[in-house]
């Protein structure tokens, strides 16, 4: 459990992300963390801007947490870990961005990388500009080198699966795909040129 003195700095979305990072099943052991979120704790920036507009001085506490890597940073402080943290933001290619980053780190020698995805609804002030609203979610995946999945690129976009399963601003389809072993491909871009492919178990593979 995160010490209350650190936990108090997180908003509900950050707490959801920390909850999955602290999950016993993850058994975090100093791996690099790739934090992926469309806006992370965007409501915090709004609080700061509204305070600036209304009265001038802004909360140092809010300001210190108003960066995209604040939540994984809080986790690393609590865990006293010096492992690398990358924080990524993307509108509708969040899953692909996270997977590419984790793959690059594994190619560079990391034995295991923790991917954290989280997002929540935007503050209502932004509602006129929102096309596809994300529900609040957080999940974590551990990526290791293996033969269960591969990333496929097809410039011509001839992958058969339509990108209709894409949910812009949300990485939840990635979680559903990983959990649903009857599916063999997940479209990762609107162009349908990138896919995550589930590989058939090798015959005789232990």
């Amino acid at each position: 459990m995160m010490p209350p003195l650190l936990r108090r700095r997180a908003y509900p979305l950050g707490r959801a992300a920390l909850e999955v990072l602290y999950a016993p099943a993850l058994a975090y052991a100093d791996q690099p963390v790739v934090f992926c979120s469309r806006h992370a704790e965007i409501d915090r920036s709004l609080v700061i801007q509204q305070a600036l507009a209304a009265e001038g001085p802004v909360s140092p506490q809010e300001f210190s947490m108003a960066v995209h890597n604040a939540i994984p940073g809080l986790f690393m402080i609590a865990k006293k870990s010096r492992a690398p943290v990358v924080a990524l933001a993307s509108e509708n290619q969040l899953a692909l961005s996270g997977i590419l980053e984790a793959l690059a780190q594994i190619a560079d020698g990391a034995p295991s990388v923790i991917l954290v995805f989280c997002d929540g609804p935007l503050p209502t002030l932004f509602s006129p500009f929102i096309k596809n609203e994300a529900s609040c979610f957080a999940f974590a995946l551990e990526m290791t080198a293996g033969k269960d999945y591969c990333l496929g690129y097809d410039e011509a976009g001839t992958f058969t699966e339509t990108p209709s399963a894409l949910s812009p601003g949300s990485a939840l389809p990635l979680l559903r795909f990983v959990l649903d072993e009857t599916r063999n491909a997940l479209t990762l871009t609107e162009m349908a040129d990138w896919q995550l492919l589930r590989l058939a178990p090798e015959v005789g593979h232990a």
Partner: protein
Amino acid sequence: MSDLIDEIKTLIIEALNLEDVTVADIDTDAPLFVEGLGLDSIDALELGVALHKRYGLTLSAETEETRQYFASVRRLAEYVSAHRNH
């Protein structure tokens, strides 16, 4: 003074989002930072902003004087009581 002490404890709890901490949990004479409540430098800044908003106080950062006022709730209450503008 004891009313002001409780008021300042409430201000600390609210301004710093101290979860599960009540006025009774805060020792009036214990250190606020590092030891005691275990607050950090960001909390010191946050508390400075809260004291400015509530009492019109302006504390200069990083002076020995300011450190003394922040030593405990009692010291803070003495300072607020002597210098408050509202």
